[in-house]
Structures are given as C-alpha cells and as structure tokens.
C-alpha cells in the first residue's frame, strides 16, 4: 500500500555520495523529506529512495550536507506521464487506429438482395434505410434480423417470403416474389358455361350464340353462349366471348363478441442502452427502472466485433413501448353492422372482381353470453360465364348421327 502511494507520487532511486552521507539523512528527516530503503554501498556512498519533492529543497539539502547525488532510477507516475507525453503522438495515433479498426469491424459492408426485380430491390433498400441498414451503417444500430423481416413483410405485399440473414459484415436479403399463374386463354372454339347455379340477369355477348334469356334459372355447367353458330346444316365454330351477369345467393354465419379488448401502442417509447462486459452490465443511457406501467419490451443484443473476433463486449438495446388496454363495448346495431360488413368483405374476396352485393338479409340474430350470432344471406350479381372448349370431333360426330 505504501509502495503504491510512492508509485503514484513518484520517487527517485539515487546514490548519495559524500564524506558523511548520514548527514543527508538526518537533515532530510528534519526537512520532512521522505527517504526509505537505505543501503550502504561503500564508505562514502548510500543508496536510497527519495520521494519526489521540490527540486530546490533537494538542492538545499545536498548543499547543507555537502553531498552529491547520482540518480539511478526515476520511478512512479509523474515520470511515466512525462514519458507518455513525449510519445503522445504515437499513443494518440495508435488509439485512433484501434478506434477506426473497431468501427470498421462493426460496419455493414454490403447488403445483398437476392430474388427481387430491380424495382422491388429499390423498395427494399428504402425500407432498410429507414431501419438504419445500408452500406456503411454501424451494425450496432441495426435492428434484429427478425425485426427487419417483420418490417419488410408488413410493407411489401407482393412478396411471399422474405428472409434476412447476417454473415459477418454482410446482410443478405432473400426474397421470393409472388408469381400468379397466367390465366390460360382458351382461344379455340369454345362455349361459355355457367360457373354456378344462378338466375340470369343480363347478357353481354360479343361473339357466339346465346342460349339463355334474362330471368332464366341456370345450373352449374349449363351452356350459356354456344360457340356453334349457323343452322344445323351449315355451321361453324367460334370462340364465344361475353359476360353473363347472374344473380346468386350466398349464406353466411357470423359470430362476433360484443365487448372487445385491444392492446394498443400509445406511441411513447423509451430506449435503454447497456454495455455488457463479460458478466457485468453497465447502463449507458436510460436509467429509469420501469419507464411505463404497461409496455412491450424488445431487446436487441449486438456483440461488438473486432476484426474477425468477438469481443466480450455486447451492446444491449432495450426498447420499451408503452401499451394501452382499450375495451370497446358494441351496441347491438353496431355489432350487427360490423358483422355484416366483415361477412361481405369475406364474400367479395371469394368472388370475381366485378361482383356486386345487392343486399344482405338478416335471417337470424341472437345474443348469447356476450356474443352476437348472425345468419345472413346476400344477393349478388356476378359474371357466371366461364369458357369451356368445344371438342370439335365429338361435335361433328354427333351432328352426323343426328340426320340418321
């Protein structure tokens, strides 16, 4: 302990040379200069350690005791600091170099996007940029890969699957785009047949021979527009085209709760940064213990790398997002409206694009244990015509048979 004190204060190891070097010690003691570890080297010389004091006092002491001093070593912090100061340039340079290396080790060097066309790739890059991920960004501020996947997949609707992976300083984004099968055009001779059971409302025939009229009931598969035109003797086959709007009915059953509990984000959040060194965790930013009463906690751990190694330092980012519990109590009218709305939406998703719901009729309504049960049917106008190819050979054979 005492030696440690001497180290911080600084001391000299010196030879005191004179006729009577004991005088130096006696006077030094009187002048309160600390001297220790005294050894006799020879008749005229003592070797001792002297605490660093005013150089003038030391000079006076030497003069008074008629001794000379020969310094052997300079020890302690003050000397060390002076040495360091002389080499400040080198030290600063080295430190700067290490910092630069550390920064470059934790940088994102490339972001690769595979499987996306240029337009989508650009869109992805923009989204990633909003999440602090771009070439040259610090990896420490990039969110977790699963968070990135979430952010991407919620914003990109045209993508079936998106995967984000990190390998060293490279981020790789794999994209699988949705590919819709090309609708197969039947361009040869064809009929238009009913896709489902319906009551025909209107016919818009561009080509072909209509076989049904308005207000006629048709079954699924029934020919609506024939591709065979002309009389029985002279006929030809055409590719019939057109639309047949039919009235169809759909039943749906719905069940919705009268009271709903939602958890909403209030928009307030609180970030906490911690640095983990081995097993010790030090808070860098954000010292509140529990920033919100109700919150969602997201933790991102970023190991700090140095060149190819992982350092024992880990940057931890904890994001607290305040949440709010909301209870919504529906009246019967509101619940009914919601139920019908959602059932219609569900129905329209299944139907062709130009389908129209004329009206919805409630067949049955009941509230059981806070749940609204609803049975409805919807009247829909939609295009029921679907093309169906004509087997010409079969048709001709049938024609030949007929006259006999």
């Amino acid at each position, binding site marked *: 302990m005492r030696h440690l004190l001497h180290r911080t204060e600084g001391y000299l190891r010196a030879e005191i040379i004179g006729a009577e070097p*004991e005088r130096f*010690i*006696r006077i030094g*003691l009187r002048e309160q200069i600390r*001297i*220790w*570890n*005294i*050894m*006799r080297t020879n008749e005229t010389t*003592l070797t*001792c350690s002297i605490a660093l004091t005013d150089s003038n006092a030391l000079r006076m002491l030497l003069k008074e005791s008629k001794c000379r001093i020969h310094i052997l070593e300079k020890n302690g912090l003050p000397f060390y600091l002076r040495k360091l100061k002389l080499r400040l340039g080198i030290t600063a340079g080295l430190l700067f170099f290490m910092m630069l290396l550390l920064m470059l080790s934790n940088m994102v060097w490339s972001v690769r996007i595979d499987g996306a066309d240029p337009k989508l790739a650009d869109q992805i890059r923009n989204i990633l940029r909003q999440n602090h991920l771009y070439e040259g960004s610090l990896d420490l501020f990039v969110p977790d890969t699963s968070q990135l996947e979430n952010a991407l997949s919620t914003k990109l609707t045209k993508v079936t699957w998106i995967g984000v992976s990190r390998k060293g300083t490279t981020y790789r984004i794999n994209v699988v785009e949705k590919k819709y099968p090309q609708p197969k055009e039947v361009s040869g001779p064809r009929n238009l047949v009913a896709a489902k059971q319906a009551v025909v409302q209107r016919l818009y025939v561009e080509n072909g021979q209509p076989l049904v009229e308005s207000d006629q009931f048709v079954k699924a598969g029934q020919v609506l527009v024939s591709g065979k035109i002309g009389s029985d003797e002279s006929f030809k086959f055409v590719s019939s085209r057109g639309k047949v709007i039919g009235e169809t009915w759909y039943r749906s059953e719905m069940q919705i709760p009268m009271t709903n509990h939602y958890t909403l984000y209030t928009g307030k959040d609180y970030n906490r940064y911690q640095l983990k060194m081995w097993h010790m965790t030090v808070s860098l930013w954000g010292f509140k213990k529990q920033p919100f009463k109700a919150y969602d906690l997201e933790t991102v751990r970023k190991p700090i790398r140095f060149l190819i190694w992982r350092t024992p330092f880990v940057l931890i980012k904890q994001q607290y997002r305040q949440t709010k519990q909301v209870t919504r109590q529906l009246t019967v009218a509101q619940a009914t409206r919601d139920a019908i709305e959602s059932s219609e939406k569900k129905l329209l998703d299944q139907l062709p694009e130009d389908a129209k719901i004329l009206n919805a009729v409630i067949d049955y309504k009941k509230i059981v244990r806070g749940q609204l049960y609803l049975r409805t049917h919807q009247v829909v106008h939609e295009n029921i015509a679907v093309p169906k190819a004509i087997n010409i050979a079969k048709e001709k054979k049938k024609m030949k048979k007929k006259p006999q």
Partner: protein
Amino acid sequence: MRKWSAHLKKWFAEVSDIPEDVMLGVPRLTLIGQFRLSIENYQSVLSFSKTELKLALNEGELHITGNDFVLETILEKEIVLQGRVTGVRFENE
C-alpha cells in the same frame, strides 16, 4: 533536580499503567526474529553501514550490529531496520 523528576516520572508510570517509554522518552525496540528491528523514540542516526547502525538516544547511544542492513523506513520517531541482527548494545558514558 533532574534525577528527582526522572524518579517521579518512573513512579507515575508504574502507578498509572501508562507505558514507560511514553512517559520517560526511552527507546522501545521491537525485534521480529532476527531480521527486522524497529526502534521508536530515537534521536538521530549517527552512522550507518552494512554491518552497523549507531543511533543517538535521549541518553547515550544504541549500537546495533549484524549484516546486510537496509534502513527500510526512517521517520522522525521511528526507524525500521532490515537485515540479520546479531547484537544490540547500549553505550552510556
């Protein structure tokens, strides 16, 4: 007169249980084994060498002999000597 006061101090030390070295200003020597000797209540260092240390006391001198002496600590009232101590001798004229 001086003798009287010395006697009185000695008597007071005995009666009051205060250590005698404090009362009388005589040295207190603590020898640990053979290798470390601390001397309290000395006056000054007269001479010091590898084999001998001479100290001035309030009355008389103290001569310590031995070998490989190193003065580990020197304070105003205390001195710590390291080395192999072979002899401690008081010199009173």
